[in-house]
């Protein structure tokens, strides 16, 4: 009985925080400009696909989507590459002041993106990285790195040290231990970290805007432009919102499927 109420509560929370805003956004994207949508109406007077059509005709949107995917892929790869050694050290090598280093690594999560953005925006302007795709990739990586390091180090920590010692004693070099033991056991963490990084890069706005706009127009920057600067144009914004949401939903759907189907993965996660 208790569990029953608990699940009702969880579903209600999910509906309130996720579904309700999405329903409103969906309605806004469908408002017929002739009819409009004003209080106290619960639903728009008329619906049409006008806004979707208008956005769809905008060629620059396709470019923005392509650029966003490209940047997110680059940020994911770069984060993984930079995070791996740090995560390994945190997980497997004992050293002095480990707690302090951990705090330092997580610090970017505490500082608002806007502040980080302004700081690096100025710096990047000085060194010539402003308004460039590499600049945006670097700026976003600053934000995604703490997540990646956290997830990877937690995953690597869960690989028992005895397994690594056993493999070494059986003649495996560190590289072969990584290939034959650590990678097969830790890959769910790598996938999880990669997906989270991809999504948070895809949705990043502040740092991208400060460093890249107006030259580098990712989807979120495009969303800002569509919002119209001084006056908000809800219907247009709602359409772009859904486009931004697509990869997020897709990725988490795929992740959920993968976790359910793969027995080895489930076992791996169970061990974690």
């Amino acid at each position, binding site marked *: 009985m208790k569990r029953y109420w608990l699940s009702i509560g969880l579903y209600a929370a999910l509906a309130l925080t996720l579904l309700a805003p999405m329903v409103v956004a969906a309605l806004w994207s469908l408002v017929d400009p002739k009819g409009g949508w004003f209080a106290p109406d619960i639903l728009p007077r008329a619906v049409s696909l006008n806004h979707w059509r208008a956005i769809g005709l905008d060629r620059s949107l396709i470019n923005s989507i392509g650029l966003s995917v490209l940047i997110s892929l680059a940020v994911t790869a770069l984060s993984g590459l930079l995070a791996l050694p740090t995560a390994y050290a945190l997980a497997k090598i004992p050293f002095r002041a480990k707690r302090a280093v951990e705090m330092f690594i997580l610090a970017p999560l505490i500082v608002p993106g806007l502040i980080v953005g302004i700081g690096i925006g100025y710096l990047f302007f000085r060194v010539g990285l402003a308004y460039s795709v590499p600049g945006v990739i670097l700026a976003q990586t600053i934000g995604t790195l703490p997540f990646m390091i956290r997830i990877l180090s937690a995953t690597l920590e869960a690989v*028992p040290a005895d*397994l690594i*010692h056993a*493999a*070494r*004693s*059986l*003649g495996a070099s560190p590289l072969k231990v990584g290939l034959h033991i650590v990678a097969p056991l830790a890959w769910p963490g790598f996938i999880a970290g990669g997906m989270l990084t991809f999504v948070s890069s895809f949705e990043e706005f502040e740092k991208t805007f400060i460093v890249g706009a107006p030259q580098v127009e990712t989807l979120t920057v495009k969303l800002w432009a569509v919002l119209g600067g001084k006056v908000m144009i809800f219907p247009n914004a709602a359409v772009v919102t859904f486009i931004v949401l697509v990869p997020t939903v897709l990725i988490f759907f795929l992740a959920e499927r993968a976790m359910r189907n793969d027995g080895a993965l489930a*076992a*791996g996660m169970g061990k974690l």
Partner: protein
Amino acid sequence: MADAVITGLRKTFGPTVAVADFSLHVAEGEFVALLGPSGCGKTTVMRMIAGITQPDRGEISVAGQRIETLMPERRNIGLVFQSYALFPHMTVARNVAFGLRMRGVPAGQIAAKVAEVLAMVDLADHGERLPRELSGGQQQRVALARAIAIEPPLLLLDEPLSNLDAKLREQLRDDLKALQRRLGITTIHVTHDQSEAMALADRVVVMNAGAIVEIGTPRRLYQTPQTRFTAEFLGHTNIIPAQVQAGLMIAPWGQVLGAAPSATGLLHLSVRPEDLGLSPSEDGVGLVTEVTFLGAEVEHRVTVGNLRLRARSSGQGAAVLPAGTKVTLSFPADLHLLAKSTAP
């Protein structure tokens, strides 16, 4: 010759001395147990031999080759862990084959060797299972098979039986011993379990606080321990202080225990509970305070003055004396003295 020689091994962690000047020679085919309480340094010694931990100084040679500076994968040492440490994503056969694959052995030879060692541990038909589908005892046998598949000159066992329940532990202990004899593989076994060490080892190395306390055969260490630590760590014992007067050893309660080997001073005797005799007597010096029936044995706790002694008797004739009984104590003719320097 596949012997192992360890000389002057030392390891400190910050201000803590984990192992201080550890030297040991293990002969070819010998089974040696490192025995001691947790934190005595026995595991650190094992990890230094395996190459998991780097010694501060000291030398390790196996089969005449210096190995202390080699990477673990170059040492060719078989390792078995308390946690089994089987690779969970590989079948039993692939686990056992791992060391051979890393050595680039041809597939045909690997298959033959895997079949051979799995048969040795009675798991011939379990090759395609995953480790999680096996019982703890079976998993540890796979770990053993994996370690001996590479035919190492030295086998290191780190508390391999500690995760198993009592019955299974005895069974696997016997299997382990039989296998070690059959292969004649030089073995170092780390344990905190004295009965395991005594049952398995040719020689036991008793360790405490990072140093070797005493080395000897299980029988020698049990019957004639040189130190109080060994006497008390291997089973139970009664330590009895005795004064030497006129060439005789006198117990604190005045009883003459026997002829003294030296002229004067205070001596310490170690008397095993099974060697201490009790007989009820109205004018006895001892008082039975507790009786425990242990199945095979009966244990009496006896207070004499401020000494608390333990006496055990076994067999059908073993008397059960109720608490409150006054008893006289009898000692074996062949009393064992502890070395003076280590007496309390």
